[in-house]
């Protein structure tokens, strides 16, 4: 298990008249990395149901099935084996490898929205996800308040608390039961607070501004990952990576949506993120929608992401000596990525629509992935 994943939902902050709709939506994701290294098939379902005009329940569920070449698809793998982590090994015996996207995951969540007389909204959410060696549960609370009677401006304040249980491998014999080698259950928590303002600029456009703060606390290390220390060119130590026990992240996001013409809608967003691991990132995202007739909607999107490395990251094999924190996880490195997105939606009937989306993700680390999403939505 190399990745720590959970089900993240995106909330809509749009201050438009939110359409009251009952629907069932089904999507299937097919994700493939270059060289067929990893392949994930993930079906998901979402149900949105209004109870009168004051209450809405939204529930979703996803199951990831890893197939093909992914290691965790197997209970074990057999081959010329790797050595155990060790002090003082021959440098020539050290091989570098990639981290794979590996999970067998089920996750689900529910969000209950309650509206008051002034149409302010209180949203209560709960989520859970389970993987082979990672379990997570979270709760969230969010309040949206209309700033004006015409409902063109709204302020939203929300917070969530997440609790994770990680089955960590007994690493370097520190702090675990060496008499049996038992895996240890480690925990971590995450608190996320977000304050956002959303405003309709004119009948064709709106803007969202939000600031967020995320505090992670607990076991944030990946017990599967190794680093090289004390490399003198001939011998070196191969030991487990180690990350700080806390991480404080801050960020802001600005989103602008404009219906340029009757048929064309442009989405632009920019996010700035920084944390006390020295990671800074910029995300620029854009989507262009084009409606052809009343049944077809096409989307083209382009996203650019750029991050700086964590201060305890190093990829070179002679870097780490006695630093407390060390990781060679490429996701903590300095890189940028482009995503090329496309989607087509077809309205079969007034109630029933289908979509197909093809996307390509290209990271400067060498990771390339294609992913397709297809599904339908039925309004009832």
């Amino acid at each position: 298990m190399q990745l720590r994943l959970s089900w993240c939902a995106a909330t809509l902050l749009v201050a438009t008249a939110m359409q009251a709709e009952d629907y069932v939506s089904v999507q299937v994701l097919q994700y493939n990395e270059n060289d067929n290294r990893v392949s994930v098939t993930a079906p998901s379902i979402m149900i949105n149901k209004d109870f009168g005009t004051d209450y809405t329940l939204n529930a979703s569920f996803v199951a990831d099935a890893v197939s093909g070449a992914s290691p965790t698809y197997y209970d074990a793998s057999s081959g010329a084996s790797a050595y155990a982590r060790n002090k003082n090994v021959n440098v020539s015996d050290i091989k570098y490898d990639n981290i794979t996207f590996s999970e067998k995951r089920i996750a689900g969540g529910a969000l209950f929205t309650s509206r008051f007389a002034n149409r302010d909204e209180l949203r209560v959410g709960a989520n859970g996800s389970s993987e082979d060696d990672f379990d997570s549960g979270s709760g969230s609370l969010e309040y949206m308040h209309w700033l004006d009677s015409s409902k063109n401006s709204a302020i939203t304040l929300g917070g969530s608390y997440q609790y994770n249980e990680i089955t960590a491998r007994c690493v370097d014999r520190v702090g675990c039961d060496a008499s049996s080698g038992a895996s240890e259950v480690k925990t971590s928590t995450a608190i996320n607070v977000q304050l956002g303002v959303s405003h309709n600029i004119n009948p064709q456009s709106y803007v969202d501004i939000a600031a967020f703060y995320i505090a992670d606390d607990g076991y944030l290390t990946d017990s599967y990952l190794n680093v090289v220390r004390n490399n003198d060119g001939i011998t070196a130590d191969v030991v487990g990576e180690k990350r700080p026990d806390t991480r404080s992240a801050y960020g802001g996001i600005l989103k602008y949506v404009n219906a340029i013409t009757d048929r064309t809608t442009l989405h632009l967003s920019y996010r700035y993120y920084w944390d006390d691991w020295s990671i800074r990132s910029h995300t620029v995202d854009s989507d262009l929608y084009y409606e052809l007739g009343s049944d077809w909607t096409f989307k083209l999107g382009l996203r650019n992401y750029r991050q700086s490395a964590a201060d305890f990251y190093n990829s070179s094999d002679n870097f780490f000596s006695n630093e407390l924190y060390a990781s060679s996880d490429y996701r903590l490195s300095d890189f940028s990525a482009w995503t090329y997105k496309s989607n087509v939606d077809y309205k079969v009937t007034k109630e029933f629509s289908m979509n197909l989306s093809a996307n390509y993700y290209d990271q400067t680390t060498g990771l390339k992935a294609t992913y397709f999403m297809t599904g339908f939505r039925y309004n009832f």
Partner: protein
Amino acid sequence: MLKKYIYSFDAMSTPCEFTLYTESKERADTAAKAVLQETKRLEKKYNYYDESSLLSQLNARTTNLLDRETKEILQRAKQYYKTTNGVFDITVATIKELYKSELTTASLESKKETLLAYVGCEHFTLKRDKIYFDNAHTKIDLGGFVKEYAVDRAVSVLKRHKIKSALVNYGGDIYALGKKPDGGSFVIGIKDPHDPSQHKVQVLLEDQALTTSASYERHYKIEGREYSHIITKEKNALVVNSVSVISKSCVESGIYSTALMIDQTITTHNRVIIF
């Protein structure tokens, strides 16, 4: 409701891991401790490099007394020496020392010539509880035997602890005990010799052992450096790159997978996967 418990430790310079499915953590921990103890015992007893180990004493000729376990192991080794046409040979250690001590190639070659005469399982005999070497030079190394034997021993320990479902994996030498709690067999992937981060085939195991020998060397794995193929695809189609053997014991699998890497004419009634 069976729960999954994972145990990992290092022994014989290999990452050892086993997964137990039991009703309680207490039961799993008790069994795991016994397994760990057993593995560590074997590691110590048959450590070629530890002068105090029984094996070193036999090699140094300071004793020739065998306990029942060691006698059985040596008997089996002798048997496999025959069935593998001499490919599996615990006495190749006889010339191993030379590579460490001799500095000039000339002297190395001449000494090797001499010592080669003392390589082969016919140079020792087992009678009652004693081992008899027919010379002073023959040395025994159980390196290709003990890790697999430790897996088989771990399985017996687990059986003694009434564990019905477990997967023992000592650096890719595997034994699957019973079925998974969901009723399915254990699914094992065999690594692609050209790219060990990928799997080439999957094998279903149930009360069976699987080992793989491959042309690529053992290594220390550092994940996350870069995302690309590290192992280059220089390939000669005639060379066997990977041999896996499925059998009832890990020792049997281990010996045949190693031997078949070298000589594909060896016959075995076990299931073999070669690529």
